[in-house]
């Protein structure tokens, strides 16, 4: 039996209002039969939406999707509760390892990872951010955000990524985007040019030095001051020259010794002052000022403070090899020098030179502090990949790793020590994972299922994407 649309509407009104048995029925139907017919008819109706569906444009993400073989152990790790130890550390290490190797989570694992992605330390890239934004419908999705609305750190990172891939293309991108940007975004874009800074950037920076926004012009001027040939550079070079002296040394006077004069004003931290003195100066320029050569300066920097100056200037020029010869004096400053360089020249060096410098440093003098989550994280961010096999082995055999193992026996320190050991996982390349597993076994850490999952995950994770 078919009901006309008018009859259906009439019966629906009657059933809803409770008037099915009263008044004039639209036909001879029993109310229950009418209900059965209306119900059957309703099953063929399509849901009606009050607005058209909004489809998000594709999200650009340069990272590669995690290989399928690494998914099962990672999924087991992600099933742990957030906040519980050591699961928190294990997932943190897995995320670090993933990010450092330029991989991203498989999109199908995002639902499982969702509580972890909300942790402050989670490496959230474009795909993950878009995923989280979709779950908060009140907020605009990233895809509809312009550069002016994008968080500052994200803007900086985006330009930096382009700059890593191709410095010229990165500069062209910045130039093209600048007209539409507000001052804070312009400043971030300019700041990101520090990576791979070179003579080709001088023209753009010169234009930006006259920008009406103070933050932008200061950022541009600071970068110009790093370029040899600028007045600011010459001024800083002269200041360094005044403090440095090459003196004859040795019985026959054939050796040279570099000395650093005390600063005009007393300072509480001479090492930081020495680093600041040489920051962004090239070693070859410094050597020329002293009528010497870079290699001679490296050989003459025996004392710790001059060694800091020379090492810093060497890094500014990409001379990672200087660290081999300066490892001894630098070891006295270990973490302080390391941290400063990460925030300074190391961070601005081209990736290949930065990697070389860091690995030489880790191999030559692995400081105990490397076996600590904060340094591991900082290292990974700047390495953009795991350590080389040699550097990783040097670190795994370092006194810091040994000390962490010993501390496992101390109840008060055991938790932190395990945290440190597990954080190593993110740094080691696939070839070194058996050695890491052996260390964790000695520590008792790998005896737990989740720790074994982490090792399995690392073994299945290539050191870099197969592009």
């Amino acid at each position, binding site marked *: 039996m078919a009901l006309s649309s008018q009859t259906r509407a009439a019966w629906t009104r009657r059933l809803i209002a*409770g008037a099915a048995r009263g008044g004039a029925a639209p036909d001879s139907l029993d109310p229950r039969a009418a209900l059965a017919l209306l119900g059957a008819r309703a099953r063929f109706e*399509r*849901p009606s939406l009050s607005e058209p569906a909004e489809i998000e444009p594709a999200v650009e993400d340069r990272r590669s999707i995690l290989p399928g073989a690494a998914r099962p152990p990672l999924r087991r790790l992600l099933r742990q509760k957030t906040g519980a130890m050591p699961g928190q550390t294990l997932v943190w290490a897995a995320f670090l390892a993933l990010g450092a190797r330029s991989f991203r989570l498989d999109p199908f694992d995002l639902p499982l990872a969702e509580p972890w992605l909300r942790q402050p330390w989670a490496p959230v890239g474009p795909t993950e951010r878009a995923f989280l934004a979709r779950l908060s419908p009140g907020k605009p999705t990233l895809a509809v955000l312009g550069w002016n609305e994008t968080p500052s750190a994200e803007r900086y990172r985006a330009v930096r990524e382009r700059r890593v891939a191709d410095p010229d293309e990165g500069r062209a991108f910045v130039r093209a985007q600048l007209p539409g940007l507000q001052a804070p975004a312009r400043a971030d874009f300019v700041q990101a040019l520090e990576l791979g800074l070179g003579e080709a950037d001088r023209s753009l920076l010169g234009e930006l030095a006259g920008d009406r926004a103070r933050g932008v012009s200061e950022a541009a001027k600071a970068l110009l001051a790093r370029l040899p040939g600028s007045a600011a550079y010459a001024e800083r070079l002269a200041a360094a020259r005044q403090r440095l002296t090459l003196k004859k040394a040795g019985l026959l006077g054939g050796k040279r010794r570099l000395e650093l004069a005390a600063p005009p004003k007393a300072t509480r931290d001479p090492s930081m002052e020495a680093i600041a003195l040489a920051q962004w100066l090239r070693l070859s320029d410094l050597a020329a000022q002293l009528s010497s050569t870079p290699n001679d300066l490296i050989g003459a920097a025996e004392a710790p403070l001059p060694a800091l100056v020379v090492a810093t200037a060497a890094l500014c020029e990409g001379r990672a090899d200087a660290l081999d010869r300066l490892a001894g004096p630098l070891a006295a400053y270990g973490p302080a020098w390391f941290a400063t360089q990460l925030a300074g020249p190391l961070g601005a060096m081209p990736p290949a030179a930065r990697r070389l410098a860091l690995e030489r440093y880790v191999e030559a003098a692995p400081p105990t502090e490397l076996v600590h989550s904060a340094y591991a994280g900082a290292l990974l961010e700047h390495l953009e990949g795991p350590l080389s096999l040699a550097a990783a082995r040097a670190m795994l055999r370092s006194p810091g790793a040994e000390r962490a193992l010993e501390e496992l026996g101390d109840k008060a320190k055991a938790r932190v020590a395990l945290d440190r050991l597990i954080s190593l996982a993110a740094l080691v390349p696939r070839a070194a994972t058996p050695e890491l597993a052996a260390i964790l076994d000695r520590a008792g850490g790998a005896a737990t299922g989740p720790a074994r999952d982490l090792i399995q995950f690392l073994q299945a994770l290539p050191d870099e994407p197969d592009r």
Partner: protein
Amino acid sequence: VSLAIGDVERIAPDQESLNAARKLLKPGGWPLRQREANGPLIWGECQGSGAAPYRVCAHTGDLGYKCSCPSRKFPCKHALALLWAQVDTPQAFAPAARPAWVDDWLSKRRGGSGSGKPAAEDAPKSAAVAGAAEAETVADDPAALARAAAARERAKAAREAAVLAGLDDLDRWLGDHLDQGLAGFAGHAAKSCRAVAQRLVDAKAPGLAGVADELPARLFAAPEPQRETVLLRELGALALAAEAYRRIDALPAPLQGDLRRFVGFNQGREELLADPEALRVGGVWTVAAARAEVQADRLRRLETWLVRDVAEPTFALLLDFVPVSTGAGAPLFIPGEAFEAGLVFYPSAAPLRALIQTRGPAAPPAWPAPAGGLAPALAAYDAALGRQPFARDWPILADDVRIGRADGRFVVTDAMGALALPIERRQDLAAAALAGEGALEICALWDGVELSLMSARAAHGRWFDG
């Protein structure tokens, strides 16, 4: 492997389990028995009372085991029988690569495949005796058989009478609500539906009771503007079933089967297998989804959705129920796995529910090609509903669809945006992930109101629910 019968005796929870295991040693009950070529693992599939064979695997070294049956004896008779068979007839176990479900067990077994914990440690603490699943029928006395047949007839007649009485109560309940008007139904839906569901359970109509029990949840899951339609659909389905059941003899035989299942009658496995008229379909079946849901009656409903790359019937549903109290509830299959099998379909105007009759080896997954976007998928749904008005969730396939947002929720929409089907809220996380994947090919369940995604194929691979 130096497994001995003494080992099997030692781990058996009681003599009854050993007796039950002995009865399972007949090869006919095992469509599959295999072993690792150079390892301690053995596994097999034992035909039990469910829609799908029980999957059991064991480690002949440490006697660890896993079985998909709901028994609360540890080890169950299937695990004992598997180990026993390995002692008695090791040649019956063909060497083979470990299937995915055995790998899955191994990966969850924290002790590892080589250094697993002893079986006794792996086993849950409880050792309560299983109920119906353990029962074995032994009767060969003709008089006793006749008495049993007569008793069954009496029970059948009593149940029919009880169901008809229950339908009268259902009619009264519906009539009362129609008299009051459905506008106020939502205000007391939970209490009222629970009451009529209880009455229908007493009347031995558990299928209708389930529809009544689920009604409030379905009602409130729907967006506000759609609730009136949902209410008419659900109450209408109950009214239709009540009316149709009183005139069931006038319906075509396949539709009678659909209606009886909707009301709550079960057709026994053996009866279905013995039915020469039943639709039998062989081929490669791929697991599209494996779901577990606890029902209001404290039974866990295990659904396995199978799909094949050949026209009608493209889908099959294996349905199993286990008591929640047994703790068993792990899916019987892993989504994405495929195997050759012969299925027997329950009589239906639109065959969907089935049993596995014969089980062959694993095979590469074979997915059907969707007929197009959402419009042809919904047309197929309409056609099925036209043949089988008691159908609930119906599987659909569609390609070139995208996931977007509308009215504050995730929807599946076609390339032109002309159609948009809301995705159930439970899948918000999955929908948020898939929304970034662009064009998708989906396999989903559609109930007329919400879509429940089972699987989706994106550019970089296939996603499965859960």
